[in-house]
């Protein structure tokens, strides 16, 4: 990997010593890390000590009870919230990966009439702000009787609504030589087999990137669940966090502990698939928003 290839060698006259470089890097790192460290520190503090000013940067004593209290709060079934988030994230992501790649296969590898037209239509939907889609979608889901179910958060993603992923996968598919599937005149079933048995297995990098982006966006989504669900039973983690705050006060220790629990799976995914992640951002310039 040629990431260090160019560097800033000519700058070295000024930033000669590695000490200066590390000092700068660490300074930036501290700025990036302070809020995160603060989250962790708060989650381990004894309840009550989070209101002390000046604050203790290091929790003394370290207590783990906030984590237990956060997941066993009466009236706020943390594990149910987690289950909802998992169900939504997994089903929506599965739908996204399958349909986006299926549609991308059509756009990338079959020369049908009207292809360019529909592709431009697809790209133009990228410009639509979410809020424009939100109101009419809400009305549509209301007509369908889907409000206060998880369906609006899953079903659209089985229809390739996120045009960006289709675009991304299509770009990748186009780099695979066409001979693979144009060798013979084939019927539809044969094409589906090519898609499933030839193209998908060699598309790991792009599918990995799409998977990560999709998981992140569904796991972190706040506006969707806020608008489409009402019942406690359907709340996601992102929504559930809100209820650690109340008019009478906020349990900061528990809130931070719950935030860390919500962050943990994402972090694990990030570290295990970092390679795809960074490459995905390079390919796209978009990421975990």
């Amino acid at each position, binding site marked *: 990997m040629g*990431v260090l*290839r*160019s*560097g*800033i*060698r*000519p*700058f070295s006259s*000024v930033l000669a010593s*590695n000490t200066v470089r590390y000092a*700068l*890097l660490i300074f*930036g*790192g501290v700025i*990036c890390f302070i*809020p995160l460290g*603060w989250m962790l520190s*708060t989650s381990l503090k004894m309840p009550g000590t*989070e209101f002390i000013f*000046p604050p203790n940067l290091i929790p003394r004593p370290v207590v783990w009870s906030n984590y237990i209290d956060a997941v066993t709060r009466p009236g706020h079934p943390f594990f149910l919230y987690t289950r909802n988030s998992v169900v939504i994230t997994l089903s929506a992501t599965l739908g996204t990966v399958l*349909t986006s790649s299926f*549609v991308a*296969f*059509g*756009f990338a590898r079959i*020369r*049908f*009439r*009207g292809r360019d037209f*529909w592709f431009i*239509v697809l790209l133009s939907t990228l*410009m639509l*702000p*979410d*809020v424009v*889609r939100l*109101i*009419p*979608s809400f009305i*549509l889901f209301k007509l369908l009787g889907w409000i206060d179910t998880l369906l609006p958060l899953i079903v659209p993603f089985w*229809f390739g609504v996120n045009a960006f992923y*289709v675009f991304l996968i299509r770009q990748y598919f186009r780099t695979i030589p066409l001979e693979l599937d144009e060798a013979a005149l084939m019927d539809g079933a044969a*094409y589906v087999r090519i898609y499933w048995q030839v193209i998908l297995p060699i598309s790991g990098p792009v599918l990995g990137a799409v998977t990560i982006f999709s998981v*992140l966006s569904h796991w*972190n989504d706040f*506006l969707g669940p806020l608008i489409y669900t009402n019942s406690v039973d359907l709340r996601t983690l*992102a929504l559930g*966090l809100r209820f*650690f*705050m109340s008019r009478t006060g906020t349990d900061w220790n528990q*809130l931070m502990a719950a*935030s860390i629990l*919500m*962050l943990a799976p994402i972090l694990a995914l*990030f570290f295990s698939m970092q390679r795809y992640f*960074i490459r995905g951002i390079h390919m796209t*310039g*978009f990421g*975990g*928003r």
Partner: protein
Amino acid sequence: MARLLSLLGTRTQLRRDVLGYMFIAPWLIGFIIFTAGPMVGLVYLAFTRYPVLSPPTFNGLDNLDRMLGDRFFRISLWNTAYFTFLGVPAQVVWALLLALLLNMRVHGVNVFRTLYYLPTIIPGVASVFLWMYIFNPDYGLANYILSLFGIPGQAWLWDPELSKPSLIIMELWRVGTMMVVFLAGLQGVPQSLYDAAAIDGAGLFAQFRHVTVPMITPLIFFNLVVGIISSFQIFTAAYIATQGGPVHTTLFYVLFVYRHAFENLRMGYASLLAWVLFFIILVFTIVQFRMARIWVFYEVE
């Protein structure tokens, strides 16, 4: 024979057409149901009174009339513009600075790349809560840090003067995506250009100004366009942390639309407001692409 062949040709094409549409069918159906249909509906709704509980009734240009006289429409536009035009350039500059740091040739720089990117994957909601705690006027970390420098504590999100700047600081923490885009660009700047500049006697800042910046203008442009589009749509932070306050200073446009649509149940008016945002974004994007011709430098292959 020739006629037979041409017929066959058409058949092949016909077959391709059927196959092609079979493959794009999921998207095409989804596009009609979840995008095109709703969009058409939104145009209609913009000219109606629709309190959700009863069906929409046509009311002509009443919504437009209402919008032009709506003080909060102007306030939310101003707040959003302030947040965007101060915040996005700050994000671009900060992301570029971090990327420059990460582009240094030292051992273990990958660890720092991960560290710098980490805040960006934190769920938006969790990040908002964290910063509410950090900005707490009574016991927050921000005031503690100020106190170390002898500066009196601030009310941050709860101070009408500081509420928007506080949110800008909050967003600055999560510039990882822009940063990675810049980093990729910096790595693509040919070493020979720096060498040539160094021979001409260009120092560190001269090299940055005359080599680095011109070479990455396409990425600056990209980050600006994407940053502005997403900044126009800020919602979660204002909804959770400030609820539009204090004194409407964080009433951003999408929060304003959300309130009309889902709290006041004025779907008709909200539809018009949504369209207006769409046009604002469209116009800004077009203007940026026009301006790009002047300052963005694309390498000719």
